[in-house]
């Protein structure tokens, strides 16, 4: 079922395009040698170039160019061997140059696409229009003083990749899935840390609505939304506002708006009235950026395996379901953990343990994959104990909890607590005989046709053996002795 919003005049379709600003991971800034690291004392990571001092000339950082190309390759996009920088002119207190060096007419990356997966399992392609390199602005803080805003230029001049999507997104869910996918790709590539809280990834959301089958109507741009959840809310809130405008006989005007998460609504940003008149012109301080195809090929050859490929390979190599593989590749560190565990073991069993007990323990203890509740070696040893039938599945769960609690290795726990599975058929037969003798009435009922009691006998035998009986052998023995 396609997503739509119901108005007084019937169903409306929502059309969304996203501009994602992703901060490039690099040591130094895009055009200066000052630190590109987040934080730092106010104005400590600032050079004369970043502060817009007269006479300073920008020199481009080769690594930022490489990061943009890697990201472009990850988005299955066209890499433009010729690209150029332009000045985007606007006045704002945190933009000391009075212009942002960006790429307008000739971006470094052209058309590409990403695959998103929706709740119901459908796969959809979202087109990428372009990716261009530009400078980030400084940071304004408005709540430090009653009548003044204060400016920190540490972020000014840090490399940004602006990734622009086609207006292919049709619901808040798709917007969320798209953002998660972009975040996943840049994190795998190591080109952006995807941290929306610290602002290293932000999104501008373009929203319009239309009746099914119509041409696009006027859109509004919601600036600087800083979480995936807020993007999803902003899409719906803005679409509902526009439907109300259209249905009351009004007309949506193209403008820049702000999303207010506390009120769950968008409002007009008057300050951005002239925002779309940027008077772009070619940056006279920089020559065109020319790339060698051989250099691009070299970068391509060294790209890490991306989430889509990894997911397909996990299904193929380890025989696990597509859904489970998706969960495992969501974060590269989780995928690495799983793969270390699954190598040379039963892939399905490994996947069940990671997505089941392991994830549960991680959530419960507040730990993460970098600092896991049990090490991959310990969990591996546990799977080995299961595989060679030293312990059975039920005992394994107890041993796992003990591992989380004490940090001990599973073999040590099994040894210490005497949890080895009993495969001695003599001992099993004796336990079965005793249970059947003690429950003569139930045996009679069973023999008169109450088949369900079989499970009861098995349960009693396992209980008598403190859960250590080999389940298959116990089943077998109960069956035999009941005749």
């Amino acid at each position, binding site marked *: 079922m396609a997503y739509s919003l119901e108005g007084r005049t019937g169903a409306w379709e929502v059309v969304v395009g996203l501009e994602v600003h992703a901060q490039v991971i*690099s*040591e*130094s800034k895009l055009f*200066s*040698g*000052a*630190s590109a690291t987040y934080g730092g*004392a*106010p*104005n*400590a*990571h*600032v*050079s*004369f*170039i970043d*502060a817009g001092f007269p006479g300073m000339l920008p*020199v*481009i*950082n*080769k*690594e*930022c*160019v490489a990061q943009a190309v890697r990201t472009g390759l990850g988005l299955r996009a066209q890499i433009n061997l010729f690209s*150029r920088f332009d000045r985007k*002119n606007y*006045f*704002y*207190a945190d933009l000391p140059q009075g212009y942002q060096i960006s790429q307008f007419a000739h971006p470094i990356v052209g058309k590409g696409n990403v695959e998103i997966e929706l709740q119901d399992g459908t796969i959809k392609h979202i087109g990428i229009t372009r990716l261009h390199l530009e400078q980030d602005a400084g940071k*304004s*803080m*408005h709540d*430090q*003083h009653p*009548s*003044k*805003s*204060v*400016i*920190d*230029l540490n972020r000014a001049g840090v490399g940004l990749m602006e990734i622009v999507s086609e207006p292919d997104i049709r619901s808040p869910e798709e917007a969320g899935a798209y953002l998660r996918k972009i975040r996943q790709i840049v994190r795998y590539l190591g080109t952006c840390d995807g941290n929306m809280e610290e602002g290293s990834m932000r999104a501008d959301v373009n929203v319009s609505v239309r009746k099914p089958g119509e041409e696009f109507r006027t859109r509004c741009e919601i600036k600087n939304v800083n979480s995936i959840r807020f993007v999803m809310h902003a899409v719906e809130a803005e679409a509902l506002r526009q439907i109300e405008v259209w249905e009351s006989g009004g007309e949506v005007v193209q403008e820049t708006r*702000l999303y207010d998460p506390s009120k769950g609504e968008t409002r007009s*940003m008057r*300050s951005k009235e*002239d925002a779309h*008149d940027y*008077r772009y012109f*070619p940056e006279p301080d*920089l*020559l*065109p*950026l*020319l790339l060698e195809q051989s250099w691009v090929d070299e970068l391509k050859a060294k790209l890490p395996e991306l989430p889509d490929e990894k997911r397909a390979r996990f299904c193929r190599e380890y025989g696990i379901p597509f859904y489970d593989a998706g969960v495992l590749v969501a974060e590269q560190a989780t995928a690495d953990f799983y793969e270390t565990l699954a190598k040379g073991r039963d892939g399905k069993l490994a996947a069940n343990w990671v997505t089941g007990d392991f994830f549960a323990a991680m959530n419960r203890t507040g730990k993460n994959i970098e600092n896991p509740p049990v090490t991959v070696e310990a969990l591996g040893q546990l799977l080995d104990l299961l595989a060679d039938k030293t312990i059975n599945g039920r005992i394994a769960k107890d041993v796992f909890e003990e591992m989380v609690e004490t940090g001990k290795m599973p073999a040590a726990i099994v040894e210490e607590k005497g949890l080895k599975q009993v495969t001695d058929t003599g001992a099993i037969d004796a336990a079965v005989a005793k249970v059947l003798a003690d429950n003569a009435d139930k045996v009679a009922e069973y023999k008169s046709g109450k088949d369900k009691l079989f499970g009861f006998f098995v349960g009693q035998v396992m209980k008598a053996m403190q859960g250590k009986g080999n389940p298959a052998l116990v089943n077998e023995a109960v069956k035999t002795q009941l005749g």
Partner: protein
Amino acid sequence: MSLDAATVRRIAKLARIRVNEEEVSTLQNELNAILGYVEQLGEVNVEGVEPLSGGAQMALRQREDKLTDGDMAEKILANAPDRIENFFAVPKVVE
């Protein structure tokens, strides 16, 4: 191409230059004269000529990604009309 008075006012506003009403027509004439002068370039046939990107036909020089600058907040703030600790201070920008 000719600029009307409204466009002149808009350009001034975007450039944050205060222009008195009596100056508008003078500026309009001057800007139109400049544009007229530049428009002479339109007479040259540039069919099939690659755009020139600079005086020297060189590729953009790229630098290594190394930390070579910064850590001089005092110098950066030296010309600031106003500051609070090591921040620039500006009239409050209200959204």
